[in-house]
């Protein structure tokens, strides 16, 4: 990433975005920040019928500049085409109670995840991809079918705004339910903390692959969940079940790190075997990182 991109990426850090309550605004800022840091636009469209000219924006790829127009008018303009997309992207967001967790000073996993989802939706819809949204916990919740219209973004953002994490996680079962509704090939972006039985999750992911979906799993974890560095005696309460355990910080960290490492190993291995991209995203990491990975995949696939 270039220096300017790095500097721009700094503005995409969660702590900078978190104060912005409006999800729409957050997503816009993130996306524009991302664009500002890139040499080329994340938007990627196919050749299609000429639609209109629009002024060239700094940072965009110069490939779309109409040089003839420039020669004639001395104005730098870009040709817009009516893209015909063949990408159906489905964003699946985990809204279980465990997603409510967030370390002090950081965004909760759910907030981070839905900001990520909103940003994704913004980008994909702007480039005329069809984007849908499904939220789930122990079962599938609200769902917005994939569309590529401008109104779709509003619907997705609105759905994200309304959603609040609750209930337990049955990630695998929910994925199966979504998979059963898929009719077309496309991209499924799964944003979750995957605190479910590995076998169930893997089974769901496998189902998606079976439905000709290119799957991208964004594993959202809080830094505490990744490292669990706490001292002293702790009374830990499970956000989903309410179960309480009293542990010693150091020992609990050791056990948790061992457990999560094993859990990750199992799911990541299964993803590798099924050509599923699995990215672990920390809630303390810049949004650009995750977004770029997704957009890169989008570019490779289509």
């Amino acid at each position: 990433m270039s220096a300017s991109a790095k500097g721009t990426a700094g503005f995409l850090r969660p702590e900078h975005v978190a104060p912005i309550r409006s999800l729409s605004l957050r997503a816009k800022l993130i996306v524009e920040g991302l664009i500002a840091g890139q040499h080329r636009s994340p938007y990627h469209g196919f050749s299609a019928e000429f639609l209109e000219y629009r002024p060239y924006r700094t940072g965009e790829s110069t490939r779309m500049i109409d040089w003839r127009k420039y020669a004639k008018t001395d104005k730098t303009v870009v040709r817009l085409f009516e893209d015909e997309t063949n990408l159906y992207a489905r964003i699946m967001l985990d809204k279980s109670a465990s997603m409510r967790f967030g370390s002090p000073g950081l965004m909760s996993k759910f907030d981070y995840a839905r900001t990520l989802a909103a940003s994704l939706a913004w980008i994909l819809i702007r480039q005329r991809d069809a984007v849908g949204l499904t939220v789930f916990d122990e079962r599938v919740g609200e769902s917005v079918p994939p569309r590529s219209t401008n109104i779709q973004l509003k619907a997705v953002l609105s759905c994200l705004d309304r959603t609040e994490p609750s209930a337990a996680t049955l990630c695998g079962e929910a994925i199966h339910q979504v998979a059963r509704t898929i009719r077309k090939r496309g991209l499924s972006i799964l944003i979750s903390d995957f605190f479910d039985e590995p076998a169930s999750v893997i089974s769901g992911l496998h189902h998606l692959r079976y439905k000709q979906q290119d799957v991208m799993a964004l594993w959202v974890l809080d830094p505490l969940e990744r490292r669990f560095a706490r001292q002293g005696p702790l009374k830990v309460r499970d956000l989903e079940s309410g179960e309480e355990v009293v542990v010693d910080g150091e020992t609990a960290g050791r056990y948790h790190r061992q457990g999560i490492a094993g859990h990750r190993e199992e799911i990541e291995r299964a993803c590798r075997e099924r050509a599923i991209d699995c990215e672990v995203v920390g809630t303390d990491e810049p949004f650009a990182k995750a977004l770029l990975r997704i957009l890169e995949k989008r570019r490779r696939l289509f």
Partner: protein
Amino acid sequence: MSTIAFFHPLYLWALGALAVPIVIHLLFRRRTQALDFSSVRFLRSAAVKASRRRRLRQLLLLLTRLALLALIVLLFAQPFDRSDPFQALWSPQARVYCWIDPTVSMEYRVSGTPLWRRARAQTELIDSTLAPAARLLVYSGEQAAFVPREDIPADKLGAPRHGPADLDAVLGAFRAAADGGGRMPVLVLLSDFQEPAAGYLDTLFAADTLDSPVLCVMLGEKEPWNYGLGGAVVRGDRNAVAAVNVRASGRALDTSEVVVRLGTMRAGHGVASCAEAETVTVEMEVSFPPGEPAAGSVRLRADDPFPADNIDYFVGDRAEGRPVLVVGESEASYPVSAALAAVRGRRWREPVTRRPDRVTFGELDSADVVVLSGIREPTRTLQSLLESSGLGEKVIVFSPSTDSVFAGWNNQVFAHVGMDKAELLRAQRPLFPVLPDTLSRLWRRFPRTAERNAAVYTYYRTRTGSALLRLNNGVPLAVTLTDKHGHVWVVLATPLEISRANNLCETGFYVPFIDRLLRYAVELRGAAPETWYAGVPRHNPYYGSRKRARILRADGSFLAQWDMQRTVAFDRPGNYRVQPVGEPSYRVPVVIDPAETALSYRAPTVPEWNRPMVKTVDPARLRDLLHHRRGALALSLAWIALGALVVLEMALWGWGRGEKAERRTQNDER
């Protein structure tokens, strides 16, 4: 009530420091934090194990530190068992007051060492085991107080002397010294515990609950043995016979020589042997030079542990005279005194005459014969003759007055001697005494002509007692009887004073009559002349008489003067000469007090309530007591426990650091 006390209780304030580790523990105790977490699935295994282990370790560490601090404080405070008052011997505040029995019986030798030297060695032993700040004091008879051991000359420390042990003074000095406060006094009595010391302590222990512990160290041998002499007498003049009683106790006496000496000159010898617990009388012919009665010594040549009683002293024909006290109004007592003074020979010392309100108990006690004549009202002192009040056995001659004024005293005496029905009678015709068989020892060579001149007009008729002489109507003129206190009473039927009841004072009957009555009564009592015992004080026979006497040793050197002292004593056995001013001198043999030769040892009797405060030990047991302090084992265990706690503290601390290092390593690996 707790039996644990502390030698240094002020150190207990340091127990407040126990709050420090508790406060540190509470302040740095990690409180359980509440944490809402996404999932506890990976934490369940760590739930109980580690937190329990950590809490256990922290609790153990806290308890170890508390125990460590408390043990250190307690060791400085030096706990001891209050129920054992002898724990005071190990206190730095101990004050040990030692009394070494000064009586001559302490010269008894055990394995060649006199008991008083063993006692001295015990004081050195005690001193060597005391705490540095504790002090040992020894009783000094000269100062009548407890003084530091080094203040008594080494040659005088414990050296015995003749005379009784003045335990009253010793205990008084102890109480005065022990009342200083803030100290832990212990009284140590080093003695062979013969009578009367043992008896005195019996009374002391039974009288009051003791405030301070008393340690009785019995120095006497368990099975003492001894040979001794006593009762040396000489009968005869120039070719006389000396007799002495030789006794053996604990062992038989093999044939041993008995030697009689006059000064440095050997005057006779004999041989004695007797079985164990037997006393034999050895008679030896001795030759004395002419002149005054001889005075000398008899010595038994035998080796025994206690040679002090192997010599006895005698004076031939003791010319001391019997002390006589005449009590009565002047006109009543004068005739009796004059009569006794007129008796030829020196059988009676010049009588001491006192009015009833002027006589003292000491004068009553020191007289062999007491004549009561013309007493109207008895005084408290005279009442002691009728009551048991510590007087030695006396001969009491009672001359009742026929004057009715004297009736009260007369009746008291009559009632005391059992003559309740004594009738006062007036003879129609004068009565005269009838002498019995004058061949009898009492009346041998009594002047017969005197009896016919004597006339009795008024008399008491008594029906009690043994009649010594009767009137011609058969009524006893004088009777003798012994009362319940052992006094021999000679009760007259008519007064001995100048009286209208008779004319006895005016006749030649009077003087020999009184002499014979007193002699018979004295013989009846069977008492020998009182013996002077070395160191034992007696009433000064010249006290209050305005007379004085010089006391000379056997070699003629001046020893002392008796004049105004109430009591006098001789410091050591021997022959002494008493030179009263204006009177012939006489010799006095002073012998060892037989109480010191009895060699009968016994531990004092301690009643139940005083048993915790009195301990009776022998030297071996004393050494054990001093060297094996009760609770020393516990003290040693306490030090071992201290060491163990230090090791435990370090182990627990190391355990915690090991766990931290392990966690750090694991964190680094991750």
